[in-house]
């Protein structure tokens, strides 16, 4: 039986979610999720304990045989703090965190993770740095086909793959791209873009904040519709919208540089100063400053900080992460102190 603590340590060593700089630094990562259910069982919340185990065992058996990089964890064996880290890494959902039953099958590089018995029997998730919708989908699809060789899925002539909630029906595909959009946010253009995306059947969410307000100017854009469009169509549409937004962001950056280079540079260098020297830092301030520094690196204003260090900070500054690696529950101010120290260390030992 694998130990979740060892595993999270291992994960920390090969954190790819927000890994090395990609050619396009606006698109931070790509995520593909497929929702599937096994025929002959009710949806997860309505399974008996025995049925839950049957489903878990069946899926674990198939997946572990197929891919030796995967490790199986029963949710019951994952302590709350570790679960919170997994939520912050987007490997499990906040809803899954609260469940008694279920399992997580995951690779240490975080590229593949499968939630078993969350809202659906299977939530297959593949992750990649940068913008790689097609490639990432192919990986998820390969896993899907492997499971399908050994188990019958719920499938309906009209509605396609059946899911517990009708918002996931049909393809069961949710494709998302995480975008860093500081210039669009600074110039107040982001709200117009979010509205336009909604009309095009896309969903835009801030990553750390609630709703559309985003800490750290990081947004996730994903498809809303899963039924009535083929996988290829869903991916192509999303790709197009994402490319468009990236284009807008790059143009906004150029305009900012032309109109107010000194002000922009001032803001960026101050942010770096704050991160390097502050002793107490809220997650809000950290997210904001890290976003500025990231932008500074992209624009060539900051040259002595590798983007990897910034990305590490982004994934380590969240409350679950901080407490997990300090191995204790921290009060808000203690967390702010620990956060400041961690970021200081990450940005000075580079």
């Amino acid at each position, binding site marked *: 039986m694998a130990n979740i603590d060892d595993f999270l340590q291992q994960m920390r060593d090969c954190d790819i979610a927000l890994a090395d700089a990609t050619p396009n630094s606006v698109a931070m990562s790509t995520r593909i999720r497929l929702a599937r*259910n096994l025929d002959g069982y009710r949806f997860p919340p*309505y399974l008996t304990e025995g049925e839950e185990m049957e489903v878990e065992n069946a899926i674990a058996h198939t997946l572990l045989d197929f891919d030796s990089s995967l490790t199986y964890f029963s949710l019951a064996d994952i302590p709350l703090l570790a679960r919170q880290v997994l939520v912050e890494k987007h490997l499990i959902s906040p809803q899954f965190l609260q469940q008694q039953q279920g399992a997580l099958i995951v690779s240490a590089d975080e590229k593949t993770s499968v939630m078993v018995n969350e809202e659906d029997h299977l939530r297959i998730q593949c992750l990649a740095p940068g913008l790689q919708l097609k490639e990432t989908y192919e990986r998820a699809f390969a896993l899907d086909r492997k499971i399908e060789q050994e188990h*019958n899925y719920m499938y309906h002539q009209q509605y396609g793959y059946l899911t*517990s909630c009708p918002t996931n029906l049909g*393809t069961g595909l949710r494709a998302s791209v995480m975008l860093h959009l500081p210039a669009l946010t600074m110039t107040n253009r982001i709200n117009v873009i979010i509205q336009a995306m909604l009309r095009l059947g896309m969903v835009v969410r801030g990553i750390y904040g609630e709703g559309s307000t985003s800490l750290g100017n990081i947004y996730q854009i994903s498809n809303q519709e899963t*039924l*009535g469009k083929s996988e290829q169509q869903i991916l192509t549409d999303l790709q197009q919208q994402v490319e468009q937004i990236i284009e807008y962001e790059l143009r906004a950056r150029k305009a900012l540089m032309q109109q107010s280079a000194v002000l922009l540079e001032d803001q960026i260098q101050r942010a770096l100063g704050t991160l390097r020297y502050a002793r107490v830092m809220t997650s809000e301030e950290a997210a904001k400053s890290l976003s500025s520094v990231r932008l500074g690196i992209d624009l060539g204003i900051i040259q002595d900080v590798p983007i990897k260090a910034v990305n590490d900070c982004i994934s380590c500054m969240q409350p679950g992460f901080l407490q997990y690696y300090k191995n204790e529950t921290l009060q808000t101010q203690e967390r702010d102190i620990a956060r400041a120290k961690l970021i200081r260390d990450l940005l000075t030992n580079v």
Partner: protein
Amino acid sequence: MLCERCEQRQAVITVSKNTNGEQEVHHYCEKCAPNFYPFTNELPKEPISIQQLLANWQAPKNVRKEQLRCTGCGYTYAHFRKTGRFGCAKCYDTFIDQMPKILQPIQADLQHVGAMPTAVENKKTIKKQITELRDQMQLAITQEAFEEAATLRDNIRELETRLKGGETDGEY
């Protein structure tokens, strides 16, 4: 105007009824109307009792819908409305009348396109092959190429057996 019962199809039938001198008017679609009055000859021969008719009149339309119960999991439509989740695969057929209303605001279309399980895909391919072979067989017969027609017929039978086999024992 939409049908009062299902609230989905166009109302094409107007039913009026006199109760204590007051005129009640209702509008139903073709599908729902027979539940209220013997309009079509699809209905059972024995006359609907007045009690039954009254029961139908009085049942508020929503209660009927909410009380629809899935035989697969035992959950009602009211349960779905409360949780936003279905209980099992059969729910999608049980509540099929409600599906357009649920799906239209959130989905691109009501018909799935895209990937399907290999088994379903294979079946589709076999069905298509059978149709093609039947056409070829017809052609062979009109051209009096009976030996060829016989071979084609054997091929069709073989494909049909494969199709049936898949349905009965789950092996494809």
